[in-house]
């Protein structure tokens, strides 16, 4: 009840601020807080990640406000739960706008974010998704330019394939690569395709591209064929169970190549199923707990909440709020000005590194990916790389 009262008041203040900025009195500080909307699934299937986003944002904003807020104004982030549901995401999105949010963080799931994108475009409110990786979110089907108000801080799926190829070629000095993909999964086939393209562009040779059907558990026939061609690296953009079984079967066949997996892999079941076959395998991930760049953040989070942040969402949520902080500091609270600022954002420092927006696609350019390596039953941080090919699409 109190919150609603407050938000009406705040909406009023927002109107005043809009009026003031319209008068060119940008720096004339307004005492009311700046409202930023955040929606995530704090219940439902994505609850673990959604709750971590809320905690990370609160932690950041608390500090920000203690240091005086933005341009002397406090920041208030309103969190709503979208229950991992598209209809709910749309409702929540509308509610945040009526609450007076000048920008929005989330939803983290592509489908929910796509559902909200048309509302944000129409209402001219910038939206930054934390982990919505679908290409269609920023550049809708049939369109060849990016939506004006929709942005993302994560890399898109296929980019991972390019990162894997760059890492294999440049860091591991692999010359011959093989790819095993799940023919029933777009995610898997796209990652494989981008790996192939980047690896070939870098001068490497893809000696084998084999695939299997989603439910299949037996890959020995394909692996035996790959083994004959003696690759240095086998790229497995698969689920963690498929990857684990493929590694196990490859080692059983006596293959000694390096394995590279994807961001589906980091779960304990990988070790349980693959056993020692997973040892030394590399994983391309978007954020890692062990990444030195996140060390302070992870420590602070652990101290405050007594648990590990569930990666990668909280890190990306902080990236998003940091971008908004910089945008508002520079151009004030006009949503369209914020969107313009985001569109032209270049080398902006955020939690996970630097952020540069590609105006054509609204995907981050040269976004860092984290490489982890399996050591016993741990994922060890190895390095941070950006794909050498400027952008996947």
């Amino acid at each position, binding site marked *: 009840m109190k919150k609603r009262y407050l938000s009406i008041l705040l909406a009023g203040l927002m109107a005043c601020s809009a009026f003031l900025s319209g008068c060119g009195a940008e720096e004339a500080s307004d005492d009311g807080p700046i409202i930023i909307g955040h929606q995530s699934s704090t219940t439902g299937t994505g609850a673990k990640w959604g709750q971590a986003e809320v905690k990370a944002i609160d932690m950041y904003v608390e500090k920000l406000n203690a240091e005086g807020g933005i341009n002397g104004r406090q920041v208030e982030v309103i969190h709503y739960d979208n229950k991992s549901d598209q209809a709910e995401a749309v409702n929540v999105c509308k509610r945040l706008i009526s609450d007076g949010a000048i920008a929005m963080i989330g939803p983290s799931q592509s489908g929910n974010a796509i559902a909200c994108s048309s509302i944000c475009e129409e209402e001219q409110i910038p939206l930054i998704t934390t982990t919505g990786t679908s290409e269609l979110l920023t550049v809708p089907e049939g369109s060849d330019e990016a939506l004006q108000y929709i942005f993302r801080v994560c890399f898109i799926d296929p980019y991972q394939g390019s990162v894997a190829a760059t890492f294999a070629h440049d860091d591991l000095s692999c010359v011959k690569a093989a790819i095993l993909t799940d023919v029933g999964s777009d995610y898997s086939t796209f990652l494989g395709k981008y790996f192939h393209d980047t690896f070939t562009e870098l001068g490497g040779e893809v000696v084998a591209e084999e695939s299997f059907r989603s*439910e299949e558990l037996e890959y020995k026939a394909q692996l035996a*064929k790959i083994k004959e061609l003696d690759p240095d690296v086998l790229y497995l953009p698969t689920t963690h169970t498929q990857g684990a079984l493929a590694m196990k079967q490859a*080692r059983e066949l006596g293959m000694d190549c390096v394995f590279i997996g994807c961001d589906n892999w980091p779960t304990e079941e990988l070790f349980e199923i693959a056993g020692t076959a997973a040892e030394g395998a590399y994983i391309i991930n978007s954020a890692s707990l062990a990444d030195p760049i996140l060390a302070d953040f992870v420590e602070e989070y652990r101290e405050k909440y007594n648990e590990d942040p569930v990666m990668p969402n909280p890190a990306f949520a902080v990236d998003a709020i940091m971008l908004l902080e910089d945008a508002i500091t520079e151009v004030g609270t006009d949503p369209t000005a914020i969107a313009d600022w985001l569109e032209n954002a270049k080398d902006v420092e955020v939690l996970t590194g630097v952020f540069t927006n590609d105006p054509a696609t609204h995907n981050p350019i040269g976004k860092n990916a984290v490489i982890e390596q399996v050591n016993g039953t741990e994922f060890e941080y190895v390095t941070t790389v950006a794909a050498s090919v400027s952008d996947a699409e």
Partner: protein
Amino acid sequence: MELSLLFQTLITGLAIGGIYSLMAVGYSLVFSILNFSNFAYGGVIMLASFAGYYAMTLLGANVFVALIISMAAMAVVSLATERVAYSPLRKRNAPPMFFMISAMGLSIFIENLVYATIGAHFYAYPIIFEETTINIFGAALGKMDLFAIVFSIIAIAIMNYFINKTRTGIAIRAASYDSTVATLNGVNLSVVIGLVFVIAGAFAGISGMFLGIKYMAYPNMGWITNKAYIAAVIGGLGSLPGAIYGGVILGIVEAFVSVYITSTYRDVFSFAILIIILLIRPAGLFGKYLEEKV
């Protein structure tokens, strides 16, 4: 080099084909006597993989003891499925279609029961043999695969002896030819059918556990039995030698298509071959009664 790949492909095909065969035997046994496709069998095989897993992890049993526990447990489960889901239908002389639908319902029930109680996790068996493989002419043969093939052959040989040489076995065969005449000759049909489900359950106990060891145990692994069912159709539903050959043929065809034609279109090619086999021999390779086909 080329020869070792050929040999490796053959071994891979045999290893998976052997498991298809075991499962196909379970389908064929039930079909031979009740003339319906027992689609709940996949659920029983999935339960077997969990029975073996828990026998080894919770009870600390070794692989042989776990196999026996799994076989015994699945014999009981399989008998229970017959008594609960099929026996009442049989007493009312329901047509085979009703049995099949009852079986499908049971299959969904078992799968969801496991989802609700054990959960959707993947369970990996403890390591049984060190991951060392045996090298034959440059091809790697997993020790577990070899063990599975040998154990399966022994199990099938025992069953074959039982069906062909013992009085009870003769009663089963008689009932599968003509249950009415068998009954008139003093065969207790209810006992014979129960026995068939017990044997099929024991075979599910073996194949489910081998699948669990080879891959992992998880609630919807029952889908793999679709392949076994197809293998049974190739061999001729109701025919035991047919089930065995059908399984091996399917496994080898799949492996060879993957290696020598295309892995992306593997199922398209291998199932086209199966359709051709059925066009030439509609009753399957060893089937006798065309009209019994579903």
